[in-house]
């Protein structure tokens, strides 16, 4: 397989853009990426468009990718619609990467776009529930429930097992809200304190509103090409896709003692990229709930069991730390337009690796970074989709 590089990224800010349809959100991200890459629509050989709940929320049940791309002047080429819940955009990137790596395409485009503000929050929440297996969502389970008590994460049990406190749960959101306050693209730009987070409205005991990623409109895009062609289009530093791993959840019985799927996905990504977690210099990970970040530190091999809060207390994962996590503000602060998040993570890491991240720039420009993304929920305990992408310069 050929070496593949990202030569351009673009994004539409996350937030509430009620008047903008999917194709408008997409246009800003797509042309941002095309211009950044120095390519024209005619240069794109194939495209993958990630979107999860646009059918339910906008009514455009089919062919959303073609609709979005035609609006941006991209037609005729192979276009694939990608639905993989909150990891749709990461999966779209994988599709674009594979096209080029395999030689089927020289230049490919990955887009992620989501529109969640449709004037009816209840409809949006119901659509979000539809990325969990229906047997669960029909009984009123929400994603916040799954973080609180689901055997897979079971944050309540961690309080007993590790001695984590409610303040510990809030710490990733404090860190990420500060990072988000420095990010012009972020939905939430107000730094929050532990008190504000802990005292916000309880959604599902003991998880509070400010610990949750909020609903968002947004979009992001990336142009990838064969490494040997990059200089044809741009003189900017090409960012190498060192590995791009996709996995699905596995069915687990109560006595299942296999490694968590987020861990196995990360391990596969490390192995394919020839690195270990100690080599990471920046991470964008899936903080759908702030305390999930504490669990993900363990699962990605950044610390041992229960040590997540210490990593934040010691400053390791803050912007000035050894391995900044969620410099963009993460899902909680930057926002979580579900079908776009995976590429918003990639865009952030590309900007950080190029030194283009403005006020939130990691001082020592990262040379090795990981984007971790997941989504959906299945019977049998696991999430439906797990994704890990490692970038290198």
């Amino acid at each position, binding site marked *: 397989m050929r070496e593949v590089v990202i030569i351009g990224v673009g994004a539409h800010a996350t937030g509430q853009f009620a008047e903008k349809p999917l194709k408008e959100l997409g246009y800003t991200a797509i042309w941002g990426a095309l211009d950044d890459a120095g390519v024209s629509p005619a240069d794109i050989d194939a495209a993958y468009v990630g979107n999860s709940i646009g059918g339910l929320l906008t009514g455009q049940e089919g062919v959303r990718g073609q609709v979005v791309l035609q609006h941006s002047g991209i037609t005729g080429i192979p276009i694939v619609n990608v639905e993989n819940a909150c990891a749709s955009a990461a999966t779209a990137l994988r599709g674009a990467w594979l096209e080029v790596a395999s030689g089927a395409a020289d230049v490919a485009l990955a887009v992620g776009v989501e529109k969640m503000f449709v004037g009816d929050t209840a409809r949006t929440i119901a659509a979000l529930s539809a990325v969990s297996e229906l047997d669960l969502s029909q009984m009123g*389970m929400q994603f916040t429930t799954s973080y609180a008590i689901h*055997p897979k994460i079971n944050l309540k049990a961690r309080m007993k097992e590790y001695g984590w406190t409610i303040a510990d749960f809030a710490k990733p959101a404090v860190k990420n809200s500060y990072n988000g306050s420095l990010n012009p693209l972020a939905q939430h730009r107000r730094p929050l304190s532990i008190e504000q987070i802990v005292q916000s409205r309880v959604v599902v005991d003991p998880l509070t509103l400010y610990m949750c990623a909020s609903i968002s409109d947004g979009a992001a895009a990336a142009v990838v090409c064969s490494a040997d062609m990059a200089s044809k289009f741009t003189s900017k530093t090409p960012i190498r896709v060192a590995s791009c791993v996709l996995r699905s959840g596995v069915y687990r019985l109560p006595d299942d003692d296999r490694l968590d799927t987020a861990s196995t996905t990360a391990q596969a990504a490390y192995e394919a990229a020839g690195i270990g977690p100690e080599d990471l210099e920046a991470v964008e990970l899936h903080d759908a709930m702030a305390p999930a970040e504490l669990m993900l530190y363990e699962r990605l091999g950044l610390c041992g069991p229960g040590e997540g809060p210490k990593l934040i207390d010691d400053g390791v994962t803050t912007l000035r730390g050894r391995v900044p996590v969620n410099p963009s503000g993460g899902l909680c602060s930057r926002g979580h337009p579900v079908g776009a998040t995976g590429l918003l993570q990639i865009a952030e890491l590309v900007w950080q690796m190029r030194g283009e991240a403005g006020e939130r720039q990691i001082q020592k420009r990262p040379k090795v970074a990981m984007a971790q993304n997941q989504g959906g929920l299945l019977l049998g305990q696991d999430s439906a989709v797990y994704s890990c992408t490692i970038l290198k310069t």
Partner: protein
Amino acid sequence: MNVLHRESIFLPPDGKQTPCLLGSRCDKCQTVVFPQMPVCPACLTNGAMQTVEIGRTAKLFSHTIARFAPAGFKAPFFQVFVDLPEGPRIFSLVGAACPIEPGVLEDGMDMRLVLEPLADTPENKDLLTYKYVPAAMHGESGRVRHA
């Protein structure tokens, strides 16, 4: 009344039996799963799954109180995972006999199956489903309770 997940619940035709859940047990490796599946997820054998009655009792694995309700539900309400003695660990709601307060439920508690309306809302009050209540609060051996 309509029944949510009808194929997963055994409704006794008369008063001589109690309701229960219907799962699958693999003839080859004896693994029991809920809901029913045609392929055993443990040994991946196709066509060896038999329907089995399960879940009349359970042990509480984890619990929380949802303070925000999705459409069709009323907050606050319990959301739990329970361990069935036959093997599966499943998501469930809690029956109306159980007061919705912190400290009422304790992980590890013995629970009993009941059949009750999904939620006390216009959309769901006529839809029956399985729930669990603490054994100490269990009244009529799992007989159907009407809203």
